[in-house]
């Protein structure tokens, strides 16, 4: 199961990227892969659901419309709580992040599907986008005063040479921790599922029940983790944006 060669199905094989169409852009490979397929499926699901749910546009919502409204209100509540009423201009972006990650996580849980967010490059791209946008907004709003973020108030001068590097490092670690959190959760979860599925397949008849039962429970947990990780990613996005827009730490 470990670093074995090609014949044996390891738990890492589920993360392989397989090409569906091969495409090239100026010599760069931009093939349409299983990962891209899942992204497009997520996009279609989200757009389709949101537009379909609001078709009735009734004041007394149907169940489907309720669902869309609940998602909207939940993320809007999060944005307003962390960024205040003026933060609603960031709302479509934050909502897109939340719903995209959520649907990608959930779609990956369907047996046989590929989990897009289990690739570090995807989560790192999203976290880097958040970090870059927050830094840009910070400098745009406060100019060079944004650098005061690394100099918290009430710190005596002789402590500064210690505090400032710590603050700097923790600021630059943000995209890494932000992305690795989501990536590690997804990869660990799916690896566990695959390992226990392997047990259930390999063991004789008297040993199949326990891994299978564990997998059922663990899949339930993975649904919770999928939702939770999307939530955490979004909450931290709001917090980082808040640090950039209103600088009181």
């Amino acid at each position, binding site marked *: 199961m470990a670093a074995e060669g090609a014949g044996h199905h390891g738990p890492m094989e589920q993360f392989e990227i397989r090409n569906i169409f091969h495409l090239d852009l100026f010599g760069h490979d931009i093939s349409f892969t299983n990962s891209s397929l899942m992204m497009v499926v997520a996009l279609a699901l989200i757009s389709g659901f949101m537009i379909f749910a609001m078709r009735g546009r009734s004041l007394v*919502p149907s169940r489907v419309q309720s669902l869309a409204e609940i998602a909207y209100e939940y993320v809007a509540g999060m944005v307003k709580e962390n960024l205040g009423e003026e933060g609603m201009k960031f709302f479509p972006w934050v909502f897109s992040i939340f719903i995209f990650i959520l649907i990608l996580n959930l779609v990956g849980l369907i047996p046989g599907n590929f989990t897009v967010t289990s690739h570090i490059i995807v989560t790192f791209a999203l976290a880097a986008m958040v970090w870059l946008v927050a830094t840009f907004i910070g400098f745009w709003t406060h100019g060079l005063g944004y650098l005061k973020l690394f100099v918290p108030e009430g710190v005596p001068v002789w402590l500064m040479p210690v505090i400032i590097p710590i603050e700097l490092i923790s600021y630059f670690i943000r995209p890494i921790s932000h992305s690795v959190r989501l990536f590690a959760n997804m990869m660990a979860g799916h690896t566990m599922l695959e390992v226990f599925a392997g047990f259930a397949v390999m063991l004789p008849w008297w040993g199949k029940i326990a891994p299978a039962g564990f997998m059922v429970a663990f899949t339930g947990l993975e649904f919770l983790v999928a939702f939770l990780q999307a939530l955490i990613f979004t909450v931290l996005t709001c917090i980082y944006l808040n640090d950039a827009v209103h600088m009181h730490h």
Partner: protein
Amino acid sequence: MFAGTTMLLAVAAEAAEEAAQSGGLPQLNPHHFTPQLFWLAVTFVALLFVMSKIALPRVADVIEERRDRIKRDLDAASRLKDETDKALADYEKALADARANASGIAKQTREKLAAETEAERQRVDTQITAKLKEADARIAATKSKALSAIGDIATETARAVVEKLIAQDVPAEDVKKVLRPLAGE
């Protein structure tokens, strides 16, 4: 630092590439970076566009409209409630006034009736006193008349008796002359 991170990732990726090619972690295989990044960018921008231009404004409109409608209904309800309260207060006040009035009127009427009754009583009293006096006078007159009549009756009776006794008519003045000193006039 972002450049440094990317460089670090690239170096690690290159180092891991040999191992990765031989069945290691697919996540660290740099071959797959560009397609994933490209399609992530494409789908995320498309999603952002759809959300911000189409889907989210619709939801926002419905929620806003519902909130406005509820607010309008609540305002109307509270306004009507205020009017009801005011009407109730007015009614209560009118009732209290009327009650106060009623007790005043009752008192007034009682006093008036009492005064009238008193006047009537006094009038009747006066009448009765007058009647009593008149009756007293009549009784006195009758009494004196009766007393004076007694003398005549006594005279007559004495005369009748004497006549019977002496079988002779006796004139009334003679009897009177005799009786007068006995009467003690």
